[in-house]
């Protein structure tokens, strides 16, 4: 038998692949063979570690040494020094951004220290294309347990007691939903996994599917047994080719060894899973639209009731849950509802995976217990704001969510507390913004998105979001009128109350929450025709401060001769001539020109 003394894990999630991890893998393979180490060192391509900012990531076990931003040319060093001579390659270690201290060990890195990785436990640690590795870490034990020891009702009861709520955004109690589908009359029922992760700024579902696909399949099979379904569909975005590939492999492997298919583990329970590729429509994340899309129709939502639990796919009772929800199920079964319910807050149990992005040092995925504060997520896990800029707001919940200001950073994050302050959990995207982001422009950005994704079925969403967008556009272009803010508020309230589906009902949230916490920015745009963040191009004005040494570089660079002044004294910009191109700002060697 071969004796493997070291495992080298290379992240092959989408983030690391685009930073060059495939090349690193090939180079490692070549170098190990060249050195004759290929029999004793095993290379493993894993799923996402969630620390995409630092990719490509390479981890060497048994030491657990964590190398970041590894490139092809670093491979020789890793093989010759670390794997051959046992010397850690210091220059590739992670450096703490503030103290600049090097941290060799995976578990000591602040990004991971505060996390509680349950759903993401295997991501980055196993080969997602090998079912044996999932099984070795207790995979499919939950399925075995429910099939041999539990009645379907007991499974539902266990999920209810655990307090698991839908991770797709709504936060509906999962056990309750399963119960409705189980008790709905009908012989044929379906399980559907919503993997149409369309929220801009969210990529946790992608990482779970790419890094640990079997966990989701097992969760679906447990659900199938509990509600009495023998068929499941996973609806995946076509923009996620790697997730689709790994899911296909996972389903095939599970079929081959009898963990999916007919008479699973001799229990008489049949369950198969099919993949449906989405075709690019955000609204398909809404459950009734998603079902229409699986049926081959335009993905337009329909009024509920009847809920899918009663009449779903092809009119049959259907249970729809999100990827992360299903991924939570196996551990609830194996470790028990009591264990699970002990994590989190009163109303929100377990953990939540957040996608940290935007103006933050550590972008990536962070799984934390419910109830942790936003400040801990942003500053301790996320490492704070880069380039010495000031925190301004965090946007949570994608186009359906809201922006939270500095004073709400100590808010414990759970479903209910977020709703109270005008945001929502959504899928868990956290986009951090610093002082250079204009909140009116951001609201306009989200509305542009929902407006173009509106399916057009109901008038409030189709027409209402368009009118709101027109108002926001004119505000950012300096054409805002007195009364626009009030008009936006009225329209937002009406759209929320009357739109047909979740997309329309939540579309005004980014406008309402920015109006609530950053009203002064709207007022500055409308009354003073100024963009305080200096982000709205048509409102930006340039001014020369007293830092000016009178070098006249700006004067020479200005394409419209708007700058006047004599050498060695402070220059001036004629605002009527200025075309706001920004050339002077880039030319000034003394940082004397400011925008705003």
């Amino acid at each position, binding site marked *: 038998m071969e004796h493997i003394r070291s495992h080298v894990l290379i992240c092959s999630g989408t983030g690391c692949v685009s930073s060059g991890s495939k090349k690193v893998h090939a180079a490692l393979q070549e170098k190990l063979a060249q050195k004759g180490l290929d029999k004793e060192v095993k290379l493993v391509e894993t799923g996402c570690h969630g620390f995409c900012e630092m990719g490509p990531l390479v981890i060497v076990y048994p030491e657990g040494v964590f190398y970041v931003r590894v490139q092809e040319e670093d491979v020789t060093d890793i093989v010759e020094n670390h794997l051959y001579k046992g010397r850690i390659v210091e220059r590739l270690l992670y450096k703490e951004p503030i103290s600049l201290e090097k941290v060799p060990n995976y578990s000591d890195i602040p990004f991971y220290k505060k996390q509680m990785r349950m759903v993401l436990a295997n991501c980055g640690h196993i080969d997602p294309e090998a079912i044996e590795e999932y099984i070795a870490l207790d995979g499919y034990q939950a399925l075995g347990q429910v099939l041999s020891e539990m009645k379907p009702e007991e499974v539902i009861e266990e999920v209810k007691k655990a307090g698991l709520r839908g991770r797709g955004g709504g936060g509906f109690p999962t056990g309750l939903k399963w119960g409705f589908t189980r008790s709905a009359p009908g012989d044929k029922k379906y399980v559907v996994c919503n993997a149409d992760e369309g929220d801009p700024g*969210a*990529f946790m579902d992608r990482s779970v599917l790419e890094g640990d696909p079997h966990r989701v399949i097992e969760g679906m099979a447990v659900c199938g047994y509990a509600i009495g379904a023998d068929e499941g569909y996973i609806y995946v975005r076509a923009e996620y080719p790697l997730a689709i590939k790994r899911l296909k492999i996972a389903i095939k492997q599970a079929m081959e060894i009898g963990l999916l298919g007919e008479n699973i583990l001799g229990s008489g329970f049949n369950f198969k899973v099919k993949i449906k590729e989405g075709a690019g429509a955000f609204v398909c994340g809404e459950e009734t639209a998603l079902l229409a899309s699986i049926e*081959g129709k*335009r993905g337009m939502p329909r009024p509920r009731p009847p809920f899918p639990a009663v009449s779903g796919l*092809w009119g049959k009772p259907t249970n729809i849950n999100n990827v992360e929800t299903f991924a939570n199920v196996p551990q609830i079964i194996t470790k028990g509802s009591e264990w699970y319910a002990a994590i989190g807050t009163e109303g929100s149990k377990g953990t939540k995976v957040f996608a940290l*992005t935007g103006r933050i040092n550590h972008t990536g995925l962070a799984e934390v217990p419910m109830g942790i504060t936003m400040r801990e997520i942003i500053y301790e896990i996320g490492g704070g704001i880069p380039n010495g800029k000031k925190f301004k707001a965090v946007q949570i919940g994608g186009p359906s969510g809201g922006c939270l200001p500095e004073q709400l950073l100590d808010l414990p994050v759970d479903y209910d507390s977020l709703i109270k302050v005008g945001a929502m959990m959504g899928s868990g995207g956290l986009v951090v*913004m610093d002082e250079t982001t204009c909140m009116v422009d951001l609201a306009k950005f989200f509305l542009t998105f929902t407006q173009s994704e509106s399916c057009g079925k109901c008038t409030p969403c189709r027409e209402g979001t368009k009118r709101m967008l027109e108002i926001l556009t004119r505000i950012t272009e300096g054409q805002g009128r007195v009364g626009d803010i009030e008009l936006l508020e009225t329209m937002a309230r009406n759209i929320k109350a009357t739109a047909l589906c979740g997309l329309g009902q939540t579309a005004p949230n980014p406008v309402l929450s920015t109006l609530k916490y950053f009203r002064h920015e709207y007022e500055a745009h409308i009354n003073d025709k100024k963009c305080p963040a200096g982000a709205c191009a048509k409102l930006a004005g340039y001014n020369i401060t007293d830092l000016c040494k009178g070098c006249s570089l700006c004067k020479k660079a200005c394409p419209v001769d708007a700058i006047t002044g004599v050498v060695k004294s402070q220059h001036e910009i004629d605002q009527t001539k200025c075309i706001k191109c920004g050339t002077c700002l880039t030319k000034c060697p003394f940082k004397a020109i400011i925008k705003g």
Partner: protein
Amino acid sequence: MSNQCKCNCGGKSNAFTQLDEILSKYQNTKGALIPVLQEAQSAYGYLAREVVDYIAEKMNIPVSQIYGVVTFYSQFHLNPRGKNIIRVCQGTACHVRGAKAILKAVEDNLKIAAGETTSDLNFTLETVACLGACGLAPVMMVNDDTHGRLTPEGITEILDKYR
């Protein structure tokens, strides 16, 4: 309905051999329209009127209904597309990290606007709401390759690889 091939093969091959294979694969599948359209598009590059008509006839679905589906989803295209598809992400994370400037740099480089195809049919430029690679923002995809941590200055170098 005429299914005659409009390419330069001179009628030697049946233009729809590939399409027939796709259609027979999904013959007994419920809700197969979208997968059929997806595979037809990947076989022919886009959904030409003849292709849509042929699918309508074989699947017994009105052309109007297929047209409704095709125009609903952003993935489907009724016009020829470039050899290389560029998708510049306009998601939130990319937006706050300067996606607008990236799009402009690509537009300037290719001398086309988003949604257009270069006259030599080498590039089609599109925007996408989110590629889910937010950790590397700003991002764009060229075909199946994801390029992250983009700067406007670095765009030419990336695009030159596909020229």
